């Protein structure tokens, strides 16, 4: 089966490395994907909060386009994942929303079928591919690299069914299968502030600092994320948040980058060089040599 692939806007901008590494991992694990034809922005949290009806219509266009291609969508961006899921839920629950969406899609020659499942890469890798297969394909074991798994909010809450909303472990298990050591990280589902860094910098910087210091305090050498905005926030503002508190420097990468590394994807193909805080010193200290 081929999954419909919905990259979303961020994966074409600040989150390029997420897309590069995800596709590299999927290729190695023989998961076939096909980008949704002419997808549009899902509306994200921002749109949802100012004009929810329009936002559902925007998301529904993607759902309708995707269902022409497949029965399952992979949506790596946390906001996209949430919005697509929420749209499905609310269309089912509220007849008015359904009416608005149906008419809107009709106006552009599309139909909403409710016949597609929205999946996160964590879900697909864990449940469709399986830990066993991944572990077997590991070429560069992560040798006990201490990773803080950072899930953020919208992947697990409130619609995910593939993991425990209160204490998710899917990323933990994937990283452990690659030989990493997952550290205790009580903040793993605490919000990073999202776009708050851009709009209310002081608030955003505090949240970012807490997340970074929480990881370091538990001995993490690297933070793994599954959301472009989380990665951007944690990676880009370490100096600024350090100025407000105390300096912390820790590489922040996508979990798919660690997977790609372990699965032996060619260097440079999964965007490690795009991180602002370089991960190379940690890797060489651990003597993890990648191709």
């Amino acid at each position, binding site marked *: 089966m081929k999954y419909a692939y919905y990259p979303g806007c961020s994966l074409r901008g600040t989150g390029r490395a997420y897309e590069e590494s995800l596709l590299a991992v999927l290729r190695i694990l023989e998961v076939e994907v096909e980008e949704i034809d002419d997808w549009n922005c899902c509306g994200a949290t921002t749109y949802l909060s100012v004009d*929810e009806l329009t936002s559902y219509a925007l998301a529904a266009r993607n759902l309708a386009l995707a269902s022409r291609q497949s029965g399952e969508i992979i949506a790596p961006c946390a906001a996209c994942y949430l919005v697509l899921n929420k749209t499905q839920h609310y269309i089912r629950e509220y*007849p*008015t929303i359904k009416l608005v969406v149906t008419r809107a899609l009709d106006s552009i020659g599309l139909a909403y079928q409710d016949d597609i499942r929205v999946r996160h890469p964590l879900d697909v890798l864990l449940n469709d591919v399986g830990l066993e297969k991944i572990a077997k394909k590991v070429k560069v074991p992560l040798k006990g690299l201490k990773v803080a798994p950072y899930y953020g909010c919208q992947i697990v809450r409130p619609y995910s069914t593939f993991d425990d909303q209160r204490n998710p472990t899917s990323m933990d298990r994937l990283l452990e299968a690659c030989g990493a050591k997952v550290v205790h990280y009580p903040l793993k589902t605490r919000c990073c502030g999202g776009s708050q860094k851009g709009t209310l910098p002081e608030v955003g910087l505090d949240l970012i600092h807490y997340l970074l210091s929480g990881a370091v305090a538990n001995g993490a050498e690297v933070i793994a994320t599954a959301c472009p905005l989380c990665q951007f926030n944690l990676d880009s503002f370490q100096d600024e948040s350090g100025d407000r508190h105390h300096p912390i420097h820790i590489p922040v990468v996508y979990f798919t980058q660690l997977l790609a590394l372990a699965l032996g994807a060619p260097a440079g193909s999964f965007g490690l060089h795009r991180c602002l805080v370089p991960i190379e010193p940690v890797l060489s200290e651990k003597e993890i040599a990648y191709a």
Partner: protein
Amino acid sequence: MLNRPPAAKESAGPQFEPRIVAFFCNWCTYLAADLAGTSRMKYAPNVRVVRLMCSGRVDPQFVLDAFAHGADGVFIGGCHPGDCHYQEGNYKTLKRYALLKRLLKDMGIEEERFRLEWISAAEADRVRATINDMVEKVRALGPLALDAQAAEQPSVAQEVMA
């Protein structure tokens, strides 16, 4: 702003009010209906309850008799499987129900008109919800048009019990 749509439309003209006969067992569903009362839950006034000691007492003839005399629906309520006050009376009900259901279908009585639900003494809300749901569905079907002769065929009951 987006509000929840009204639950049910108040139509202008007089709408069809179905008559539903219910057979409730004394120990579970009848008690649940009592509890719905003491909890002041509100539900559609279309159901008339006949109390029996056990849903196992529901003779197929009772169901046919109800349909033959103008019921638009029949609803049997008994204890959950494994919870029967008489150990296993409700299993017999279930077996009989399946056969009877097939038979009614052959007679042209729509499936939604005949319903069996396991409702324990604590599940007042299920009494409310089931009655409302059934009334809605039967209302949508309209009055039961039954060939009276078909319902009174004596062989019918025997076939069910065989």
